[in-house]
């Protein structure tokens, strides 16, 4: 018996370590708990436009072009499927919302509504109908969400923006702390301005849907503009919803910093450069390098590469055209990237006035006032961040030019074109979306353009949706596009 006693003791000793089981079930490298503030920082860096070079928005919007053995998908308009990557960000937003409710900090709940509105609206503008009401329910057992009509998505997100504004107003009133806010440093009032400006953007996007009685686009726009106390708006570039690059970590540098490929193979696009040259636009000098061997700062020294050409032809013309300004690869910081900024807000108001939705802006501003203010603040933006050195008299001279000065007859074209200039490598696909809505400016297409030489209107749904959520995506394609999921179909928004 003694022998077995010894054995038993030894085995018990060996097994005793199992008592500390819970100790080992705790990952020291990755936390299982989080704070809403920690998710907010991540969400800000995901939601705010991050890299025009790798996400292709600057190529699709014909600001820039790049050429290699084969053309970039966005240069050639050869894309087919879009990405549902936005839902990955929405997962973070949902988690932040859950944690905020648990922590009793409603400011993060308000921000969650705003971010949901931003991402769901971007998703619907890429594809058309998308999962909205049933999205993000994998953990509660629904991994095949139905698709909501684009109209219903807009209804939903506009409503969420209304809620977001209300919640953030309360948060501002209570002085709630919003730590982790790398955009406004925890200023809830400024978030309100961004929320309302963004709502104006979505309403303008719906300019073809003014007759929709559920949305009441014009009325919503009027309500916001009429009540400055409830719906604060941006009043200067200081209110821009923008992410500011910094030198605290390499990942905080301007995304094209130190890139050998950007410094050697990214050229200015011809259509964009020609637009700027026709207007003697001094911002060109902040955007572009002169043609090799020519003097910087003189309009004639700049030229773009026609992104519609074949790869070889683009490459051949590269030596007599302008590369993107070297500061984009030499400077760690450069200008911030805006989700939505003051200049854009003023263009949106100018357009609403031009369309007759409202009679004037805040403080009785006319359309021309808003238009001029937008251009002026855009130029000041480059003075601040790119040492553009554009003086007030330069701006006056610029605004006085006949092809710049606000003209009722060509108001929409002017506003959209000037907004296009002001959004150079900014705001992700917003310039593309606005070109799609208005037709301004004309994008260069040609022998290098795929998709039968035309600019696509949307993205096809991801292949994975057909594999994992086939019934729902096919029903959406059937109801919107007669069963054909291709890039040239016009979504509800554009009809």
């Amino acid at each position: 018996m003694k022998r077995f006693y010894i054995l038993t003791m030894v085995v018990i000793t060996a097994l005793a370590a199992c008592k500390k089981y819970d100790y080992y079930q705790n990952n020291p490298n990755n936390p299982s708990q989080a704070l809403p503030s920690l998710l907010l920082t991540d969400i800000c860096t995901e939601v705010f436009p991050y890299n025009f070079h790798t996400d292709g928005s600057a190529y699709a919007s014909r600001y820039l072009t790049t050429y290699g053995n084969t053309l970039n998908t966005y240069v050639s308009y050869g894309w087919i499927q879009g990405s549902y990557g936005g839902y990955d960000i929405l997962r973070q937003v949902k988690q932040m919302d859950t944690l905020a409710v648990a922590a009793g900090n409603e400011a993060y709940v308000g921000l969650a509504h705003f971010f949901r509105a931003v991402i769901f609206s971007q998703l619907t503008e890429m594809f058309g109908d998308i999962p909205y009401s049933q999205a993000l329910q994998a953990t509660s057992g629904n991994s095949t969400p139905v698709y909501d009509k684009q109209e219903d998505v807009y209804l939903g997100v506009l409503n969420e923006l209304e809620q977001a504004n209300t919640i953030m107003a309360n948060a501002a009133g209570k002085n709630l702390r919003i730590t982790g806010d790398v955009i406004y440093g925890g200023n809830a009032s400024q978030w309100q301005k961004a929320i309302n400006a963004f709502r104006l953007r979505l309403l303008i996007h719906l300019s073809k849907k003014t007759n929709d009685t559920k949305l009441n686009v014009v009325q919503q726009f009027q309500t916001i503009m009429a009540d400055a106390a409830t719906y604060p708006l941006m009043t200067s570039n200081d209110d821009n919803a923008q992410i500011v690059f910094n030198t605290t970590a390499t990942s905080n540098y301007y995304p094209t910093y130190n890139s050998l490929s950007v410094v050697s193979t990214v050229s200015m696009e011809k259509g964009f450069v020609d637009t700027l040259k026709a207007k003697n636009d001094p911002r060109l000098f902040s955007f572009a390098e002169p043609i090799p061997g020519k003097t910087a700062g003189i309009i004639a020294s700049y030229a773009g590469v026609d992104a519609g050409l074949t790869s070889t032809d683009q490459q051949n013309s590269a030596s007599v055209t302008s590369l993107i300004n070297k500061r984009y690869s030499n400077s760690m910081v450069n200008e911030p990237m805006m989700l939505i900024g003051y200049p854009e807000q003023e263009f949106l108001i100018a357009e609403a006035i031009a369309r007759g939705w409202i009679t004037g802006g805040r403080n009785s501003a006319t359309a021309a006032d808003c238009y001029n203010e937008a251009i002026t603040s855009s130029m000041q933006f480059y003075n601040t961040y790119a040492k553009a050195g554009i003086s007030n008299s330069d701006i006056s001279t610029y605004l006085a030019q006949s092809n710049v000065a606000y003209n009722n007859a060509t108001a929409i074209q002017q506003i959209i074109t000037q907004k296009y200039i002001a959004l150079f490598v900014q705001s992700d696909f917003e310039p593309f979306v606005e070109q799609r809505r208005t037709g301004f400016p004309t994008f260069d297409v040609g022998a290098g353009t795929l998709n039968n030489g035309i600019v696509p209107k949307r993205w096809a749904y991801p292949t994975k949706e057909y594999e994992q959520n086939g019934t729902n995506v096919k029903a959406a394609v059937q109801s919107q596009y007669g069963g054909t999921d291709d890039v040239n179909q016009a979504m509800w928004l554009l009809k």
Partner: protein
Amino acid sequence: MRHILLTVIAFFCIGSVMYGQKRIATGQVKSSKDSSALQDIIVFVKGRQQNTVTNPSGEFALPCNIGDSLVISGMGYERTTVAYDGSENFVIFLSQTATNTLQEVIVTTALGIKKSKEQVSYATQEVKGSVLQKAPESNVASNLVGKVAGLSIATKSSMFESPTVLLRGASTLVVLDGVPTDKNSFNFWSLDPNNIESITVLKGTAAAALYGADGKNGAIMVTTKTGKNGSNGTEVTFNSTNQFSGGFLRLPKTQTQYGMGWNGYYAFIDGAGGGGWYDDYGYVWGPKLNQKDASTASGYVEVPQYNSPYDPNTYYSFTESGYTDQSHYKPIPLITRGGGNNLKNFLRREFITTDNVSFAGKSDKGDFNLSLSNMYQKGQVPNTSMTSTTLLLSGSLQVSDKFKVSGILSYNRQNSPNYPANSTQASGSGGSGPANYFYNILLWMGPDVDIRDLRDYWKPSGANPRPGGYAYGTKNMQQYNYNYTWYDNPYFAAYENINAYVNNVINAQLNLNYKFSNDLNLMVRSGLSTNSDQYTNKEPWSYIDNSFQLQRQGGFSLQQDNNTQIVTDVLLTYKKRFLNDFHATVSMGGSSRYNQIGYTYESTVGGLNLPNYYNLAASVQTATASNASAEKQSSSVMGYADIDYKSEIYLGITGRNDWVSNLPKPYNSFFYPSANLGIVLSKLLHLPTAISYFKLRGSWAQVSDNNLNLYGSNYRDWYASLATYSNGIRWNNNASLYLPGTYISPSLKPNTTISQEYGAEMNFLKNRAGLDFTYFNYLLKNFLVAAPLSTASGYDNTYVNGGSYNRKGLEIVLRGTPVLTQNFKWDIIANWDKVHAYRKSYYGGASIQDGIKVGDRMDQYFNTAWQTSPDGQVVYNSNGSPIQTPYSVRLGNTDPDWSFGLTNNFSYKNFSLSVSLDGRIGGILFNGVEAQMYDGGNHPATANSYRDDAYAGKKTYLPKGLNVTSGSVTYDPLDGHITSDTRVFTANTVNVNYIDWVRNYYRAVQSTEIYSRTFVKLREILFTYSLDPKLVKKTPFKAASVSLTGRNLLLWTKVPFMDPDGYSNFAIAEPTYRNIGININVKF
């Protein structure tokens, strides 16, 4: 293989008896064990060339005189010398040797338990430590190549690069003296071959099932030398080997006729590519070299070059191809420099020296062994070296009749002040990029460069500063090179970009054995292993690393890893004989295992604020740091029972249950059963006398992994079942977290291996020849598969268990002694194996994935290819461009069909010769190095007249192939096979520009660079002279020998430019070299 068997049998027929002497001695040879008559025993008269062989009655007759010494020897028996006394009934008893009969061969099995070979009914194979010690490579695993059937070792040529070790196609557990190592931290660098008594390979799952999950792919059991095998008293052994490189097995060649540049143009204008003369373009498609020009001083065409004298006040004019330009660099002759031997000129003679001294002794009360070893390797890349030092202390003490204590303590320190950046040990290196010396030399350095001119690698003062670059003329600021945009000066990289490594490894164990009685024994063993390594990287200013950044301001980084493992086993063993014919050993016990790992990494950011100041404080931006750690505890109960019936039928069963801390309850408990059965047919049945031993065996085991193995990195694996946040970007000093896209369901189970193994062991002709045959079939199932979810549901995927495949194969070991005479002995051992994996099912029931159908081999290689006609000719379009297949097509299987190792040992008197060959036959590889050499213009085949024509703008090259005149071809998108083909062909008649063609043809697809990976290596020759025992007696030595050694002597393969043994794809490795050396071994 068949001819070897025939050779063996043929030599058995030697046995002619010689007559002619006046007196015939007759006698009989019997076994000392049971007095049975012994057949086929060789009897010879010492000192004469006469011998005979005993008949089936053990009798012999041999002419000799009374008083002559008769030497009697036979396979499996101790060689015995007796004096012939002339008696009529002269009987000689032979005792069996300890090594050649299976009953007495001792095998080290799982947990370090020693069993007789006959008791063991699964495949094992042993390698004696002595074969590893005469010509040791720096990594001892390399010395095991070809020695064990089923153990595949792909050797590498770069210094300090670990060979790939696979047992039956999978990585395996290494066990040191019964204690399992941690598979994540153990590497063969820490093993000193001088301390190895033997290595036993337990090939299958059943053999290692007592180790639980770790043993699922068998185990390599290393037994350390102790003092107990020596003689009483103290014995001192000195063993020393010096080996140096004796030439190359594979040395890539480059063309020598065309210089750097593009399309025939090259001139150094400003070093920044600004002048349009391709001075920084990076290709070797420049002008033809060595062209005469009567108008120049040298008589050759002269152009400004990277090494031209520079004068900032002078513009030198030059003319090339009809164009005239100016440069501050003086035109110099455009000629081949360095004889085109840049690679050879860069490399040094590699050298390895290994020295060991050991003190061993024993007495009735115990034994000890003290050993000190040092290995130093000088790498063939300049400024690279490594040292490995090992101190071993081991001993045992018989405290009382019942109680025995033993222990082992070994300390190993590996130290490399700088190892080659192309070694896969180097962080982020080993591949294709400027950090690899050979990338710079082989692919992109033209023959107009003499690499020896680059030895002074700092840019001299007075040279033209590169626009936007750093000021030249100061040491430590700017390297001097043939190109300043894309490549590094290899000397600069070797002497200034420093990769240092230190690793301290400690292994210790304590064994307690208490014998309650002859039947009952308690064993307690606790082993600790710990290692801590540190990598240091110093990157100088102006160094171009593989990220090709614009800013080149160097950097400094430190990485530390530490691993600790403590394993304690307790086993109570009871032996019992019952029902007369049955004998049983039953053992029960427990085990506890604790693992801890830690990692820290610190690095400068944005470069160094001062050149040559390598410290985190020199970081331009704030230095960055990261760390990770993990712990795991498992507790087990285990036991085994071995039962035999009359030593004819052996049954073994084992069981183990683990409870692990790294998985959620109730999925953290694992039971690992195994069983093995052996039947000794030669005892049960009456077999022909030629068959001296015949055993059939079979085994079965089921083992689940107790890690989820989701991430391939231990830090997260042990916590993989826990849903956690991940650390996100740190923005403006705000930390962030995010939720990963994988939904972790709470019921994840690890994958399971179910193994079956069947084998036979046969010995023939009194054990003079032997055959060991094994077939195995593993089923691997329940893999964790990332099952995709609709991203709109909020998660990208979730892990589920599913999918399975089989891994099966054959192993054959043949051994024999074709010749055995008084002075001459020839032993052969041959190993042969094949193993392949076959897909059995996919998660979700798919029948094909990534081109591989259910039932197919899993090592199929798919990639893009040129379209070909049914007879294999490349199809060109009307522009003369080859047409690519629309989908990836099957290019072959990457695994070898089979592999083999063959060792012949010859001994004659005091001389012995050992010759080892091995090889892997079949399989394919993609030779990316050759593809890149075509692309860059450095491939020898690109030096031809078509190149001159292409420079002249002429399309003169006619690619061999076909054009399609009508019809079409369609391919299956799933696996790329042709589904329909109505094409009609005509010979291609479209001439093309050679450069356009060659760069496209060899680089755009992989099918043009697919080679058979078959190779055979003459791995080792050892020629040893042992001092005659008579002579030894006159010396202070007990024994002494000297050996000439040769390793990696010859390579037969059709693969150009690279050694297919350890490399494929774009791995640009050091050339493999042969080692010639001398070994001295003395005992005193």
